[in-house]
């Protein structure tokens, strides 16, 4: 397969239809899309384009674009056939009007030529206002699409899926009414061209007698009717039979009418068909085609709120490169092992209490605790305070050191540094975790930072017990 050929056939509409068809096919069970998903992820920038690309790649495997291209060609054939059919109807109409009798009821001809068209046109215009009909589209256009999918030459395994996808895509973007409208109006316009040609041919080479007849209506009605209906064609230069001519041919089937007034009647009829039949259909066909073309740009946008699409987006997100470590951890060489007593221990029974980084509302000195042999020291953790506290410890060398900390706060290496520097000054030490929660975390942390020798107490009574236990063992 040459790489350019499929690209060319990939219009926004084709991409949207294939995406919808793949989605419908996947409703019966997911397709194996790992390769397609990865390729789409690599080659397209945004999620929307990636999703369309994935669907296109899967669709190519299923032969959907080829099927779509076949359907397109068949579609033109169906269009032509339908136009011929409606034209034949037009011919039938014309035949009925220009019957063998060479005698034409002009007003009845007007109604039979334009009646069905007027009715369907009114229904279409009404449909523009009704959302339910808008979504269904024009019947003739729908018929054309349906025939295309069911035609034996365009049939493939997924022809019906593609047709339903087309309907769904167009309905979602509000374009179905315009596509089917363009087709319907196009067919009608073609039919009116054929009708006009036949009328022109008939009037050119046959002598017809046009008249009107009625049982209950008077001449005044027909005069007004002809005048009103002829007003628009008259603007385009079509002659209109005047009141006298109407009066003249009325109820006189056989004779009397002059050639000139007959010509006026013929032109009036053709003018009416052109202005009320061909012109609106041609204009609406152009308008629908314009709206249809203008709307095609919208088709490239996927509905990102569709649950099916969201699942695929999540899978595309999962293809994103994983977070990347840019500055890996290098375990610092283990710090100096904190040894408790290095120098001569302080006098037995001496105690130092230090409050470290406590919250401001914490009462100090701690209620219910002995103050120790020196005044209990409270530091917020600044460098100068730390140095002062360490100097005091070194000077007094207490037997026991009780460090009160805020339990809910996370221990950190700053705390570890202080503890490490304070420990050598005393024989034994404990951390008193104040406040609810977090004590377990402190214990784990003490162990992991190799402070196993440091006790952890969680309340003032427990702290008093710890102090007492030290005194006992100290004396022993």
């Amino acid at each position, binding site marked *: 397969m040459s790489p350019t050929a499929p690209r060319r056939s990939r219009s926004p509409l084709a991409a949207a239809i294939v995406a919808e068809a793949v989605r419908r096919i996947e409703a019966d069970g997911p397709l194996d899309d790992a390769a397609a998903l990865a390729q789409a992820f690599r080659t397209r920038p945004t999620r929307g384009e990636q999703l369309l690309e994935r669907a296109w790649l899967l669709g190519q495997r299923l032969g959907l674009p080829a099927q779509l291209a076949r359907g397109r060609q068949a579609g033109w054939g169906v269009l032509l056939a339908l136009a011929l059919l409606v034209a034949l109807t037009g011919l039938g109409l014309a*035949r009925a009007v220009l019957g063998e009798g060479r005698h034409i009821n002009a007003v009845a001809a007007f109604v039979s030529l334009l009646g069905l068209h007027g009715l369907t046109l009114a229904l279409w215009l009404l449909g523009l206002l009704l959302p339910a009909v808008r979504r269904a589209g024009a019947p003739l256009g729908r018929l054309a699409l349906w025939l295309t999918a069911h035609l034996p030459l365009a049939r493939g395994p997924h022809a019906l899926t593609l047709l339903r996808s087309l309907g769904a895509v167009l309905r979602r973007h509000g374009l179905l009414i315009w596509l089917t409208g363009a087709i319907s109006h196009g067919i009608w316009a073609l039919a009116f061209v054929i009708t006009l040609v036949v009328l022109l041919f008939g009037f050119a080479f046959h002598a017809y007698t046009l008249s009107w007849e009625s049982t209950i209506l008077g001449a005044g009605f027909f005069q007004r009717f002809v005048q009103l209906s002829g007003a628009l064609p008259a603007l385009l230069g079509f002659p209109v039979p005047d009141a006298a001519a109407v009066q003249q041919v009325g109820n006189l089937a056989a004779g009397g009418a002059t050639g000139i007034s007959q010509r006026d009647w013929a032109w009036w009829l053709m003018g009416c068909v052109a202005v009320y039949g061909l012109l609106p259909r041609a204009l609406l066909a152009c308008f629908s085609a314009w709206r249809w073309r203008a709307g095609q740009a919208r088709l490239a946008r996927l509905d990102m709120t569709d649950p099916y699409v969201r699942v695929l987006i999540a899978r595309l997100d999962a293809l994103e490169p994983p977070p990347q470590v*840019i500055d890996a951890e290098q375990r*610092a060489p283990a710090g100096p092992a904190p040894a408790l007593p290095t120098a001569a221990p302080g006098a037995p029974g001496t105690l130092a209490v230090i409050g470290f980084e406590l919250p401001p509302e914490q009462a100090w000195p701690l209620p219910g605790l002995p103050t120790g042999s020196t005044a209990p020291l409270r530091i917020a953790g600044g460098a100068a305070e730390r140095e002062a506290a360490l100097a005091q410890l070194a000077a007094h060398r207490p037997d026991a050191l009780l460090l009160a900390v805020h339990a809910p706060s996370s221990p950190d290496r700053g705390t570890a540094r202080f503890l490490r520097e304070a420990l050598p000054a005393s024989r034994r030490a404990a951390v008193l975790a104040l406040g609810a929660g977090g004590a377990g975390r402190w214990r784990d942390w003490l162990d992991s930072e190799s402070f196993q020798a440091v006790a952890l107490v969680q309340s003032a009574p427990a702290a008093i017990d710890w102090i007492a236990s030290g005194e006992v063992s100290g004396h022993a």
Partner: protein
Amino acid sequence: MHEALRIAVVGHTNAGKTSLLRTLTRRVDFGQVSDRPGTTRHAEAVELRLDGRRAVRFVDTPGLEDSVALLQFLSRQPGDSRPERVRAFLAGPEARASFEQEAKVLRALLDQADCAMLVIDTREPVLPKHRAEIEILASCARPILPVLNFVRDGASRRDDWHRALEESNLHARAEFDVVAPFIGAEQQLYTDLGTLLPARRAQLRAITAALAQAERERRQAACRLIASTLIDVAAQRRGLPADEFADPRRQQAFVRDFQGQVGRHARRAVDELLALYAFRADDAELAQLPLPDGRWEDDLFNPELLLQAGKRLGLGAMIGAGVGAVADVALAGLSLGAATTLGATVGGAVSGGWRPLWRKLQNRIDGVQELTVEDAVLGLLAERLLRLARALARRGHAAQQRLRVGDDGPGAAADGQRLVDALDAARGHPEWERGSPGAVDDADRAQLLESLAAALRPRLEPDTAVPIGA
């Protein structure tokens, strides 16, 4: 297209840096989150991609732990300006030894970032070590946006922190709860960043817009997802032949099986909602639905069924009449409209408009009993799925607890009945139940789904006002 914005996320140990990144990038599996100090010990880059495009490159850093000592150390470094002293420190041996972790933070900030988000646990008292951290970070001469975490916690010392930040000359700040963020707080964060990075303001605006768009899309998708499940459950209909119906044991087994299917539909919706909001499959659960026995239905005259039959008959007749009318015209009216009438009759019959009604009638004759879901179950399911979606929209991706939607609060019944009424249409369409044999997803189902989703939508609109920092 600009290059992606580079943001270093810094802060004291355990302040919630990795949690913030999980929530901002919607990755539940990014990094490691725990309450142990120093959980993150390396610098790690993670990208925020919007619609597949790189928007922001975040760098997660280890916590600053030994800031008091580092600040002292920095002041002894050679250099005329603070950034020079930081560089001198980074080049020295201590950057690989005692201050290895802090060095990673400063390196990331100097070399990998346009600005920093300083995550602060506002439950902590303001201490000299925190002031030292701010001073060290400020030495890198990068804009810093303090992100105040846990502001809604009872123990939050928000005002203390406001004062402390102002004293450190940090006047812009944002509030962001990483575990339970406000709706729209994320957008606010990037808007606040714009005050610090005027050159990147347009880029930040684009990010904000893309985030808002993504949020709307998620909300709409959630509505559709819930609506689709409700249609499934409302359409669920199983027939039980008369002889089995008479046997209480088999009838019971049949009902249990039916209820199991309802549960499967609900589970599927939960899974889809979790995936939509980028959570793991077991991050939430729905409490067991109280399932009464279902209702045995004999709705031969279900209005929806009649309507459907009428519609099909009407359409068939219209097409037939159209074909007939063309024939009439072609025959120049000679048939006097006979073809039109004939066409309409044939068209109506061919369209099979009577088929569903006929099936019903047959069931009735054969004594087949049909089981459907009660209105109350539908209302309850709708309510729970909506509340799950609301909870997920407000949940940060760092949240560790499993979400459970169970006992039902007030406000359930308010518009529940309207919803159930709207679902009545689905009751006449057993083929609308996804996953059932012969399921079809036709245009009528799609239309009901859209109108249901639109009705659900107001229930998912964010109503919490976004508190604005600064």
